[in-house]
């Protein structure tokens, strides 16, 4: 049962990582900010611009 719980936790963590939600959390911690529309927009403007500069895989 604990293995199953661990797998589900890992899967959710993976989804959060792919969704940039973990990165947003790290961004808030690094800047000492609380979640807010402004913080999210600032995070998006930095992270997404950087992300779409890199080539994508075929």
């Amino acid at each position: 049962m604990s293995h199953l719980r661990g797998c589900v936790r890992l899967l959710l963590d993976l989804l959060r990582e792919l969704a940039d939600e973990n990165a947003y959390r790290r961004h808030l911690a690094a800047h000492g900010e609380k979640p807010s529309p402004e913080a999210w927009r600032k995070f998006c403007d930095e992270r997404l611009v950087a992300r779409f500069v890199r080539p994508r895989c075929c």
Partner: protein
Amino acid sequence: MRKILGHLVWAAISVLAAFALAGIALNRGEPVNSVWLVVAAVCTYVVGFRFYGRFIGARVMGLNNDRATPAERLRNGYDYEPTNKWILFGHHFAAIAGPGPLVGPVLAAQFGYLPGTLWIIIGAVLGGCVQDFMILFASMRRDGKSLGQMAREEIGRVGGVTALVTVLLIIIILLAVIALVVVNALKGSPWGTFTIACTMPIAVFMGLYLRYWRPGKVLEVSLIGFLLVVLAIIGGQWVAESPTWARVFTLSGPALAIAVIIYGFFASALPVWLLLAPRDYLSTFVKLGVVFLLAAGILLVRPQLQLPPVTRFVDGTGPIFAGTIFPFCFITIACGAISGFHSLISSGTTPKMIAREWHAWPIGYGAMALESFVAIMAMIAASALPPGVYFAVNSPAGVVGETPELAAATISGWGFPVTAAEMREWAREVGEHTLMHRTGGAPSLALGMAYIFGSSVGRQFLGFWYHFAIMFEALFILTLVDAGTRVGRFMLQDFLGHIWKPMGRTSWMPSVIFTSAAIVLAWGYFLYQGVLDPLGGINSLWPLFGIANQLLAAVALCVATTILVKMHGARYMWITCLPLAWLVTVTFTAGYQKIFSPEPRIGFLAQAAQLEAALRAGTVANVAETQALIFNARLDAVVCGIFLILVLLILGDSIRVCYGVLTGKKEARLLEAPFVMTRLKPEEI
């Protein structure tokens, strides 16, 4: 005792791999079950990962978990961040998994399932996985530097500039060819076109939702977006059945090409958060979900392979693309066995997030093995279809004939029986007017996937599954088109900024519009050329893309070989030289044939000469169109030649450096970051 048991288990897996590979390779006459392919692939990957991958990690790279990685040393909570091994594995896999491993094997199935399957498995274990692992390791030891930076530092300035120009050119060809796959899948299909058209307002809605209504709730909005896309698929059926709306959404190839070009321009110029990012999130989740679903479907249904192991088209007369099995099978498979593009990902985000050096082993080697398995699943999906249906869907009208009856007769004459009535029935079952002449791989893959999904949950939903598969393919191909256009725009802005500074400012609107338009027009030109090509476009563009992609892999392997020579002299250089020598042989043979072959369906120059002769003889119906085709064939020859010259440059530079190091004339100076002892605690990962 435990050790002996371990040895026995690995021996059993190795024997099973050999037995399954021999089974599919030597079997003739009796139909083969797809499970054999799955067993052969999985066992070979596992053995390759455990023994070859570990050998490279331990002996060649000297991976050391005591050495702090860039994620720890340069930690900034942004891009440098120690990340859980399995999360990073998923992240890396999602980044490397594109349409290539799905489309390439489907096209290569024209040679039969055997050549492609063997190359996917062997090429991945000895080539693709090694390349990804080596570049990931090299970048990780160099603070996450990119392939271009490593080429410049380890080989020289020429190598670095060549790598950058090669990447930009490859992006242009890649975008054109994958956009062509989408256009060929959607032309004359109101259901598919409506569904894909709906994904655009859905993405904008998701962007606004994230920006203004529920900031940060990406998983929540992705789930909403996915439900809306499913509704769009269901609505698509209604559109296809409505005479008025079906007419609105039934578009020709050229009309769809123009729509995709316009979309590409806006996606590149609009703010990222509005369209690109939400599409990217949605596409990533759908992609991973469908790959998982397809694996489950294949294991559940275990379809028999209906395509023969080897077809008559190994002689080069294939209807989908012309060319003999060597070198064209290896060029066509592309990403399922080895992909140059992976080296850009392996030297991008991933090396900055690795917590322990040994994590590079499952992430670099393992994720590529999984990608290769996706290619095996695509091969199974294509081979599960009746061969006549497979060729009817994929063969261009210019080769098999315009009418369904004529096409069916031609294909049946090749020994793959199919009737026009049978094709009409397949089309009716999936809710399409016709499935004929849809060259590009996407529709036949969707048909194969629908067949597998339909067999597990009921054939009455075949239409839904077919359009679900088309939506999945088109969604993430278009995401690649818009993201790729933006990347190309930034590269061009960076280049032009050296000539005139304001052009380098990424937020200066005139520069944004000019560079976006330039990149869109560059790939749009090749796309439009492919749409008008009477041979279906795939015949000329896919091999060009395959050559370009494999040449980029050759660039990456040149960098890896140079680093290996600097580390160990000649001792381990065979690890990268082996796949490098193969790739150079394959790509240069294919490139030479594509330019100089006297067969007009293969050689661009021969094709131009044939058209010119017809023009002079006055036997062409449309003079302007023929002149454009002549120009396009010559342009393709020039592009192919440029690729070969660029790679010769980097290969020569790499040989010069390696020779210098091996003869002691050049200092073997590695540019790795210095050793720092890790302080990362296990609970921090």
